[in-house]
């Protein structure tokens, strides 16, 4: 058979070309609709917020005034700030410990490869709902339930972070390659040996990475817990800013920044060690 010239496609080509044209048209119209929707969303946000550019310009002087008043930082509050930073760290550590314990129970239950549908689906929905509740709201409820101090902060972090960490643990379990387990079974391994030598080494890197990530998030989030009375440095952030003591805010900001950087250096070192 002689090959048909490209300009006049054979009878078999026509529907395929039409299909391709239709796909291209559908794709580009979808792109156009999406761009339009995003633009509309931005315009709606802008119009609804009654933003006055003039006010933004006039604020320059005031921002400069804040900055001037922050210098020199008032170091007399350093002991208080350091102690409350330590309390924030304690809240983050214990909150993370709490969410690890909860996730070790809920993670396996939420793993589709381990439990039947009627178990893992409701648990996954529950975790999504937990993730949907803002931390500050949980903290306020906990303060109401157990009173002021670090305890409500720890409980709030443990509860809130489980929504994410248990999901990550479930995904680490679902990502396990079953073939090494089969090989271990063939070699005569017991069920526990298969978990210990087949499943566990595959999960550890993911679990450690996710837990460290969540710890860093918990630390940052627990900085603001004190605003609602749930312990830590947030209490002083609120007091100093509201009473215009900017030289104390400066000390506090420096401590928080150094503190977060030190923790990140430490967690990165752990990650490198485990790689």
């Amino acid at each position, binding site marked *: 058979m002689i090959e048909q010239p490209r300009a006049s496609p054979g009878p078999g080509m026509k529907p395929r070309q039409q299909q391709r044209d239709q796909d291209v048209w559908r794709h580009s119209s979808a792109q156009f609709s999406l761009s339009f929707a995003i633009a509309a969303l931005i315009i709606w946000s802008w119009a609804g917020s009654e933003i006055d550019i003039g006010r933004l310009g006039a604020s320059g002087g005031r921002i400069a005034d804040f900055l001037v008043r922050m210098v020199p930082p008032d170091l007399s509050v350093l002991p208080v700030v350091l102690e409350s930073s330590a309390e924030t760290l304690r809240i983050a550590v214990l909150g993370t410990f709490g969410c690890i314990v909860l996730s070790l129970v809920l993670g396996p239950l939420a793993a589709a490869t381990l439990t039947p549908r009627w178990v893992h689906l409701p648990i996954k929905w529950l975790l999504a709902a937990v993730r949907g509740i803002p931390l500050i709201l949980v903290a306020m409820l906990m303060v109401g339930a157990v009173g002021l101090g670090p305890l409500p902060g720890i409980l709030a972090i443990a509860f809130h972070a489980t929504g994410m960490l248990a999901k990550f643990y479930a995904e680490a379990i679902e990502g396990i390659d079953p073939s*090494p387990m089969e090989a271990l079974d063939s070699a005569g391994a017991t069920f526990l040996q298969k978990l210990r030598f087949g499943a566990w080494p595959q999960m550890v890197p993911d679990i450690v990475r996710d837990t460290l990530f969540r710890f860093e998030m918990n630390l940052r989030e627990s900085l603001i817990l004190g605003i609602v009375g749930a312990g830590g440095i947030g209490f002083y952030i609120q007091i100093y800013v509201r009473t215009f003591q900017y030289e104390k805010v400066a000390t506090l900001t420096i401590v928080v920044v150094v503190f977060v950087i030190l923790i990140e250096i430490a967690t990165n070192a752990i990650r490198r060690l485990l790689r």
Partner: protein
Amino acid sequence: MATATLTLRNLSYRYPDEDTEILAISALEVGAGERVALIGASGAGKSTLLRLLDGRLRDFRGDASVLGHSLDPAAPPPRSRRCAVGFVFQEFALVEQATVRRNVLNGRLGRTDPWWSLLGRFTDEDNEAAARAIEDVGIAELAERRVDRLSGGQRQRVAIARCLAQDPRLILADEPISSLDPVNAETILALLRDSALKRQATLLISSHQPRLVARYVDRFVALDRGRIVFDGAPRALHDERLAGIYEEPADLTSPERVA
């Protein structure tokens, strides 16, 4: 013939959701120390037979005896018998995040204490067996390297070392060379043959590259739709017969040819 390593009589198997039998073997006997290649097209039942002999596929009908013990269609073989049968997987089935030595030690799990091993403790005997197996497959210098940093050929050596660490009397290799290049494939086949010879183990290799495998075995068993269609020396299997075994089913003809 020496004492039989495996004996099959009227063995048949079908997958639970299918009507046709994937395996229907009236009789097969393999003697101790024999090296046999199981050949046939994809879907001929080679992998099914190997998994069945390894005790991982049950619910079969008929009689199957491995290393002098009958396989139970209702229950997995006990640990002591599972570790006497070594299995080399097509896609290696290694723990990618663990080192070579760790993976090879996994081959000792059936022989070591099930509780102590959970703490990561292995006996001197286990460690020596693993070291010997790593040495035998020629990757001693890679022992502490993680498996995910190895090439395909190196990975298959690790998988063979894990199998050898079991001290198996029967080695089942399921398409061990199908994901390797020709040079690595020859090396792996030689390694399997030499390891089996050295340990006086029986070797059963499945492959759809009969010409490549022929030099490393002393017997071909060809399967076609679950039935044995040839059983004899590799040189007795002439090209026409081979073409018959690998004949393309009619429904696989390409649309171009139809047009």
